[in-house]
């Protein structure tokens, strides 16, 4: 049975069915629809005002590649200019290959690229060094905990270096759904209270961040990259198998197979959670060491580095954060500053 006609242009043969609506579209119409939806998200949420200098967190992976491409297409209409910022966490055998992909992309799109490395920013602590430091004692290495916090710090630094006014990352709907599941399973009420919405508007001097692809499902991102023939790096991070997010991801795949709307339903649920005021994170101040956004005396990045430098890497993880210069008494379920860490860099 031949494929049906494209439902939009009625001329070409349909090349795919959109995962959620089931509409049959040809490649060109699908890409156009995808771009239109991202434009809609950005415009309706007023995420990137005209004249913004936007730092795109580029990892070389499919999400950030698609994000950068779409934003480039939309840049004239939105009136924004783009800069690529790539973060080098120092993960051997993974990040170097990914960075090569980013460099190719930057050349192809003719966008300025800045690479910030953990080794430079954080006093020689690469992720491999962190992993070595936290290994042993039979517990998990908690690599993603460190990487997530430090990466967001690095991204902020990189964005400031290039003079950006906004930061965008390529988180898609599946990522958001996984995050909700993960936060519930870990009991992270503070993140649940903070989550939902399209990013953060930039509290206390931090740059506003947003996720234009947040409502696009992962399948559509992959399909877009395929139809536009984008070149991206598709291997998994070396430390990903240890991450707790893997469980949430596996569950999400099963849920999606049983009920395709599950992903969107989870995002819908997350936006509407009502948590007790006591569970919400405290109003943020500034870190006493680096001046970045922090809800306690030290921002999480400084706290983590502190622990690493003192030879007690888990100092800043978990309840109480003992041993740090703390003003207040330890509270229950302390959140980390940054949003939930990802197993794989999602941008």
């Amino acid at each position, binding site marked *: 049975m031949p494929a049906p006609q494209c439902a939009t242009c009625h001329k070409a043969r349909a090349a795919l069915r959109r995962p*959620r*609506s089931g509409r049959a579209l040809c490649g060109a119409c699908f890409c156009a*629809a995808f771009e239109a*939806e991202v434009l*809609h*998200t950005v415009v*309706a*949420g*007023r995420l990137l005002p005209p004249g913004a200098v936007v730092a795109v967190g580029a990892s070389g992976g499919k999400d950030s590649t698609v994000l950068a491409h779409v934003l480039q297409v939309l840049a004239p209409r939105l009136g924004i200019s783009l800069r690529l910022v790539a973060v080098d966490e120092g993960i051997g055998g993974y990040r170097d290959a990914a960075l090569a992909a980013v460099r190719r992309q930057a050349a192809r799109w003719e966008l300025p690229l800045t690479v910030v490395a953990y080794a430079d920013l954080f006093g020689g602590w690469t992720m491999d060094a962190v992993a070595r430091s936290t290994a042993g004692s*039979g*517990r*998990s290495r*908690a690599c*993603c905990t460190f990487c997530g916090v430090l990466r967001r710090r690095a991204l902020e630094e990189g964005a400031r270096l290039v003079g950006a006014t906004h930061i965008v990352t390529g988180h898609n709907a599946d990522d958001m759904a996984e995050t*909700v*599941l993960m936060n*519930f*399973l*870990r*009991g992270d*009420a503070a993140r649940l209270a903070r989550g939902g*919405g*399209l*990013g*953060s508007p*930039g509290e206390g001097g931090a740059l506003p961040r*947003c996720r234009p692809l*947040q*409502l696009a499902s992962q399948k559509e991102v992959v399909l877009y990259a395929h139809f536009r023939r984008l070149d991206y790096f598709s291997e998994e991070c070396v430390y990903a198998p240890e991450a*707790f997010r893997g*469980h949430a991801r596996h*569950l999400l795949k*099963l*849920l999606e197979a*049983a*009920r395709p*709307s*599950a992903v*969107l*339903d*989870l995002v*819908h*649920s997350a*936006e*509407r*959670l*009502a*948590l*007790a005021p*006591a*569970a*919400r994170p405290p109003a943020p101040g500034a870190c006493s060491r680096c001046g970045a956004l922090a809800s306690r005396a030290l921002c999480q990045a400084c706290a983590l580095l502190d622990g690493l430098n003192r030879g007690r890497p*888990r100092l800043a*993880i*978990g*309840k*109480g954060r003992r041993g740090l210069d703390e003003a207040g008494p330890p509270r229950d*379920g*302390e*959140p980390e500053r940054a949003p939930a860490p990802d197993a794989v860099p999602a941008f």
Partner: protein
Amino acid sequence: MCQVGEDYAEPASEEPPPRQPGREQKCVKCKEGLPVVVIRAGDAFCRDCFKAFYIHKFRAVLGKNRLIFPGEKVLLAWSGGPSSSSMVWQVLEGLSRESAKRLRFVPGIVCIDEGAACGLSPEARAKALAEMKLILQTVGFPWHVVALEEVFDLPPSVLRCFAQEPVGTEGAYKAAVDSFLQQQHVLGAEGAGDSPSLAQGEEQLSWPCTQDPQNPQSPDRPPTAAQTEALSRLFDSVKTLTAKEELLQALRTHLILHVARTHGYSKVMTGDSCTRLAIKLMTSLALGRGAFLAWDTGFSDERHGDVVVVRPMREHTLKEVAFYNHLFAVPSVFTPALDTKAPEKASIHRLMEAFMLRLQDQFPSTVSTVYRTSEKLVKAPRDGCAAGPPGPRCLLCMCALDIDTAGAALLSQGGPPSPRHRAAVLRLPCEHEGLALPGPPAALHLGRGPAPQPEGLHRAADPGVPG
């Protein structure tokens, strides 16, 4: 597991150090008895301490929440399964204690026969019913057995939310208890013990079966074949198992509430255990019911207005329930449910259950973590709109609709950032007029594309629609 509150400071071991059960180990509580069961991560209890622990938990949950007033009529929803059987047994024992610690409400039991929905043959249904009646007669509370087919006979008034009775304040509860105790004292002094609800009699047999000798809902009159046929047709028309489960739950709830209303019960107790509630929470999340989690999984559920659903077993894990039932011979009846023997991937409920139990094996604190998070959920203020009219309600689950705010979360991003806005977004539709932002009207389905896709939005409020 990278749990948020987990203490990494000690070089902890995930599993408790290997111990020889039996000779060297003693009960952690009394330090004397021989342990028979291990609860949580390595707490071994002897039989008596376990019983005390279990009963204490039940009483503590009831006492902490102070919702059940003395002399109140409470309907126990019994499915025959272990958790609800345990709950009924706890109530039975609680009512028979010496008067100071006695439970002070008037119970009844309702049992819904769902055989038609699950596709059971009439003989199987009759058999299960007979077993249930045996147990019901032993327990001795007034009981009602209702077939699910009766849901077709429900008046449309069940879909209307009745006016909510004012929730008793702390003072009201204490006053009620004090007056009740005084009454008892007076009656005791007069030597009159004939009022059934203040029965001084200790034995179960004196418990008035006279209260309800015939059950008007009449199990003696089995549902007609036409009704059974209609019910089977209804369930067959629903395509996915997920939707069938949700439909069954909705119908069951409405039926139980109807029984409660007809017979003057103001509270309904369901036997949802901690494990079940954690699974239910995650399932509701995946179904898009994030706005209603507090009602679905909290201790009390007042969305139906006059009858409040209460969950006293919510702190007991399934393991504790199973062991208690085994050790103390609590009778229960097994009836096949809708998803018995269904493959794991058949429905969201089954998937979530399998996932949670598997994760619990690996990380023993999973269920309790999810439960603790659920305790932090609050019911978004329903009548924060003394200012505005209450929003429309879903027909099936009686929760305020959350569809209109679909765009509001995105809408609020453009406005001035403030935690109040986020809180405002989470409230009812009636409140989002307060987000006075110029720009695209709320009817525009933001972020879902220029052409509004209706199906993604309807799912959240209408779980019965074939998914």
